[in-house]
Every structure is written in structure tokens, then in C-alpha cells.
């Protein structure tokens, strides 16, 4: 139950950075700032992954999330040419109620967790997070989901391309 004793420093610093950046993502008025803050958040989460003996995941997180998805978001932001002035404003009441909801959820989850009690911790082998191990598990046990993700990607790709394609005919009519 004691939260803050025996916390090693790296974890504390990393968590601090993570939460701070997450807060900035949520509250920033400038969307570009939000994106950048999210990238920082991903960096810190990758560091957490390294702490957790999931090295491969850390790198993949950086590559996929911070490298690809966030860049995609940035591209879209640039494309739509948004900046601080076009950000819609919300009423305060709404903000307070949203905060209350989120806070309540936090309270309930942590309370449930406290009620449920802790599980027994076991330590794991050193190299479970390495590519060799993960590759073995992926190709033996999770083969079918692996193939299915291929199909998922293809469909997402096709869908995204079709949706975002500029329709020539409608452009001619409107212009």
C-alpha cells in the first residue's frame, strides 16, 4: 500500500515525464504542440519498456508509433493547415464534468485494484523480450493472428487509399 517508498529513481523520473507530457497533450491549445508532446510520451514509454525487459517492444514502439503514426498525424495536421486559431473552444462546465468522469474512473479502478489485492510476483527469465524469443513465440503460437494481421493491413491500406483519394469528378463539378 505504500506507494512511494522503495521507488527507484529511474522509474520515478520516467513516470513523471510520461504523465507530464500526457497532460500537455490533452490540454494544449496548439495541435502541433500536442503531437510533439505525444511523441515525447512515446519516448518515455519506450524507456519504460526497456525497464520491463521488453527491449524489442521498446524499439518497435519508437519505430511504429513515434516514427510512423505520429508522423502521419503531423502530415495530416500540415495538410489541413490547422493552427492555434482554428481550435474550437469548449465551455468550462464541460471540462469540469469530463475531468470528474475521468477522475471517477481512476478512483474506481484503483479502488477495485486495492480491493482485489496483489498478485504474487515472480521474476522472469532475462531474455524474454529479445527478438529471438518473441520471434519464436510469434511464429509458433500466434501464427494465425499474424497472418490475419496481414489481411488487416491490406484492408486498412486499401480503405485508407480509397477514402482519401481525391475524387476528380466531384472536384470538376464544384470548381
Amino acid at each position, binding site marked *: 500500500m505504500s506507494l512511494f517508498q522503495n521507488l527507484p529513481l529511474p522509474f520515478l523520473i520516467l513516470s513523471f515525464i510520461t504523465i507530464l507530457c500526457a497532460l500537455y497533450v490533452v490540454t494544449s491549445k496548439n495541435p502541433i504542440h500536442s503531437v510533439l508532446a505525444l511523441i515525447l510520451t512515446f519516448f518515455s514509454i519506450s524507456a519504460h519498456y526497456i525497464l520491463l525487459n521488453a527491449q524489442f517492444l521498446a524499439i518497435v514502439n519508437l519505430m511504429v508509433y513515434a516514427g510512423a503514426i505520429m508522423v502521419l498525424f503531423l502530415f495530416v495536421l500540415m495538410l489541413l493547415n490547422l493552427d492555434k486559431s482554428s481550435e474550437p473552444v469548449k465551455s468550462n462546465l464541460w471540462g469540469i464534468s469530463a475531468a470528474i*468522469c475521468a477522475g471517477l*474512473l481512476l478512483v*474506481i479502478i484503483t*479502488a*477495485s485494484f486495492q480491493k482485489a489485492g496483489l498478485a504474487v510476483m515472480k521474476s522472469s527469465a532475462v531474455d524474454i523480450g529479445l527478438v529471438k524469443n518473441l520471434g519464436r513465440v510469434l511464429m509458433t503460437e500466434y501464427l494465425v493472428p499474424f497472418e490475419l494481421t496481414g489481411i488487416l493491413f491490406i484492408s486498412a491500406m486499401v480503405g485508407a487509399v480509397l477514402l482519401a483519394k481525391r475524387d476528380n469528378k466531384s472536384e470538376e463539378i464544384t470548381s
Partner: protein
Amino acid sequence: MNTLSIILGLPLLGFIINGIFGSKIPKSLSGGIGTISVFLSFIFSIMAVPMFIENPEYTIKLDLFTFLSFDTFNLRVAFTLDRLSLWMTLIVTGIGTLIHVYSISYMKEDEGFYKFFAYLNFFIFNMLLLILGSNFIMLFFGWEGVGLCSYLLIGFWYKNAEYGKAARKAFIMNRIGDLGLLLGIFMIIQQFGTLEFTTVFEEINKGTVSVNTLNAIGILLFIGAMGKSAQIPLFTWLPDAMAGPTPVSALIHAATMVTAGIYLVIRCSALYVLSPIANEVIIWTGLSTAIVAALIGLKQNDIKKVLAYSTVSQLGFMFVALGCGAYTTALFHVTTHAFFKALLFLGAGSVIHGMHHEQDIRKMGGLKSKMPITYYTFLIGTLAITGFPFLSGFFSKDEILTIAFNHNIVVYILLVGSALLTGIYMFRLLFVTFYGEYRNQHYAFDKVHESPRLMTLPLMVLAVLSILGGLLNLPHYLQHEGGILQNWLKPIIGLTHSAQHEISFNTEMILVSIAVLVFVTALILTRMRYISRKHIPQEQTPYGVLGIISNKFYFDEIYDFVFVKPFETMSIWLQQVFELKIISKISYGIHDILRFFGGLNKKIQNGNIEYYLMFMVIGVLILLGFNFFN
């Protein structure tokens, strides 16, 4: 195959065939099917007679199924043919056949010909259900069924709204009586736990039931009989029922349906012999009906209405006999009445047919030369009903008078008065219709014609029966071992009130001569008035006592004022005040409330994604919280 199933099944089959295919088959076939089904039932009933003669206790039973059963209480669809129901079946199917034959000719031009025969067959079926049922519930089924058929047949020419009203009146008044019948049945269930005749009557004979209960049941059952058999105060439907075709009046309202009440009392004789109060009620009701109806009949000018009131009056006679405990006599009078009243009605139908649908006797006259067969048969019927010596009516009426004399002198005197009135109105009808000069302006005398053979044949058969019907139950002074009917019914009706044994021969002869004297007086009085002085019934309604009688004692008007008008007023009030103001407000109010709440709910669905998200989160919160706190 069981005789009963044939007897019951044939009219039902005729009904179904005529009902479904009737419009597609030629009229003669339709009429033939209807007639043959009833005729075959009659034949089968006759074929069953020898077995009943051999064995007095013989019964044929037909037990079909139980349609309701809980604990020890069963309602079975079951039929029993014993001597009493066999006698009634013979009357119903026999006269039914004759009337079917008559109808083939009478209803020839009508489009609804097949419907008529379907309804007639259905009526015979229901009447047989009533008579042959072996428990009160089958009797009740048949009771309601004949009420329904009466409604259908009275309102047969449905395009006329007045006829429809008359049909409804008949049905509703019947229902009022049925309330009494149902209450009586409920009391029987409560007291005996079963509705089977044999069981109930055995229990009664054991003597374990209190007199008060028996009296109450008896009176309640009699109320049902009052409705069906048109006694005061539930008799006003019968004259109005003359709106139906004449064969209907002959069959239903003279010979069969109206005798259902009598049958009920005879069947429950075990109950009535032990209920003195009920008997008194029956006697005085029947007596007052006999007198009032006879008085009204004196002043009616429609052939069928005179005969209708005559029926009511004669039914009163039968109930007096029942009240005095003379069940055999009552059944005897039912039989002879069926013969001559059917004859009279069919004869009236023949007159109406020959006069091209004229029914007012003031517009007739002098028909005896143009319609001889009708005239002679009508004459025989009239003589029978008024008590011409040695015709059927003479014997049956005389027996009733004797029984009344035995019971109570006042009843006897009043009944004699009623018999006098019977003679007067019947002879009045005969003389005004058939004698004198022809008085119709609209229809030439040359066009008046006798009815076709199919109509006159039943008339002749019934005339013979009216003459010879007395042989069925000759009185004690003529047949020492008792009449046929009396001996026939002895096993069933344990205590037949054979008055002849208790009256000395001399008293009997005096009573007989009084009856003959009454007959002669009536004949002379009417002959004087209507033939010698050539009096024609008045066009306008006179005032005073005669005025009251002419207006049927204002029964209809009183009922209208006391029952119908308040009901109508209440209906109108309910509709305008209660319905419009109160109930509408309530139901629209509920509608408005629901609409309001619906409107509130509608605001949740504003299409706003954020709201939806918020509600999703709130939902998850509630679920988790619920889970957490449990």
C-alpha cells in the same frame, strides 16, 4: 350407430350442408335436404318407441366427452333419451317436418331460401339439444341456441329495421330470463356439486335439501322459463316476434321453443313437487298471463298477433297446470296445443299468402268461399282451441280446469273466465276473417286464391291430429287404466297428480258441462256480434277500459319508460360527460405526459458525439461501480 347421434346429427348435417352449399344448389334440393333431415330424425324417433314401450325404465344414452372438469365437478356433453324426451322429440321433429314441407312452398320466392332452411335445421338441432341433454348445461346450450335461432329467424328479412328491432327485443328479453336460469343452475352446482339430472334428482328425492333452497332454485329456474315461454312480465317479445315469416311463428313461437320452459319444469318435477312457494308463484304468474293475454288478444287486428297472444295465454294455462303439480296434463296440453296452434298459424300463413301479404283482418272477410281448405282446417283448429267436445283441446283444457278446481276455487274461476275469453277472441278471428263481406280495397276478390298443395297438405295433417289428439290422454272417466300419456310418463314423474282419482264422477261431469257451457256461450256471443250484427272491428282506438286493452295494457310503453329510457339517458350522459370530459382527458393526459418524458429523452440523442462519448463513459462507470460495490 347410436340412435341419438342420428337424431341429433341429421338436423345438424342439414344445417351445415344448407349453410355452406345452399346458395349453389337449386331451391328444391335445399328445401328437400332440410325437410328430409328432420323427417329422418322423426322416423328414427318413432323406431325407438317400441323399445320404450317394452321397458318403462329404458333409456338410450350418448356420452360424448367432458368439456370441463376440475376436482369433482364435471361438465359432460351427454344426452339421454328417456320417455319424456322421446315424447318431446316426436312433437318437435314431427311438427318440424310438417312446417318444413309448408315452408318449401311458402318461402318459394324468397332469395334467402337456403338460409331459411339452414336456420330451421339449426333450430331443430338446438331444440333437440335442449330436450335430449342429460344435464343442465346441455339444456342451457340448447336454450341459448334456440334463442339465437329465434333471433336469426325473426329478423330473417333483415333489410327491414323494424324486424331487426323485434328480433333484438326477443333475444334480450330471453336473456333477462336466462339470468334467472343461470342463477338457478349456480345454486344447483353449489348445493349438489353436479349438474347431471339423474344425480340431482336422486339427491332431491332423498330429502336432504332444505325447502328454502328448493323453493329458491325452483323460482329461479321458473324465471328462465318466464323469459323463454313468454309469461308476465317477459312476454312482450312474442307478439313482436310475429315479424318473422309465418312458418317461423308456427314452429318456434307456437309449438316448440316456447314450450322449452314447460319442459324445464316437467324435467325438474322432482324439485317442484317439494317446493310449494315456487308452485304458487308459477300458478299465479301463469294465471295472470292467461287472463291478460286473452284480454289483449280480444282487441288485436292482425291475424298473427291474435294468435301470438293466444299462445301466451295458453302457455299460462300450461303453467297453471304445472304449478298444481299436474305435469302429465301440462305435457298433454303442450302436445295438443302444438297441433292446433301450428295448424292455426299455418292457416294464417295460408290466408296471408292468398291475400297477397295482407295481415289485417279488418281488410279481409268472406274468404271461406275462396279458400275452402284453409277455412275448414282453420275452423277445426279454432274448435280445438276453444274446447269443442271431444276434440283434442277439449280434453286437455278440461283436465287443466279440473286440476285447478282441485287446487283452488279462485284459480278455477279465473281460468274459466280465461277459457271464455279464449273462445271469444278465437271465434272473433274466425268470423271476421272468413265470414261476411270482402272488405279489401286494394286487392280484387277474384285474385284471392287457395294455397298450393304443399301448403295445404300440412294443414290437413294437423287438422286430423287436432281432432284425434285427445286420444293421447283420455280422462279417467273414459279410459279406466288412465290415458296413454299418463301411463307413458309414470316412470319418470313419480307423483303424477291424477286429479281424476280424487274427484267424484259427479263433480267431474259438472266441470265438464261448465266447460261445454263456456264454449257455447263464447260461440253464441261472437256469432251475435260479428255475424248477425256484422260488426267490424273499429279503425280508431277507443278510450277507457277498452282503450287500455287495445293498447296492450301499455306494457311496452311502461317498459320503455322504466327501463329503456333511463338506460338511453344514462348512455348519452356517459358518452357526453364521462367519456368526453373525464376519460378522454385522462387518456390524453397520459398521452401528454408520456410525450413530455419522451421529449426529454429525445434530447439525449442530439447527434453530438461528445455527448455520446460522455454517456458511454458514464455507463462504464456505473457498471464498474455496481460491480465494485457488490
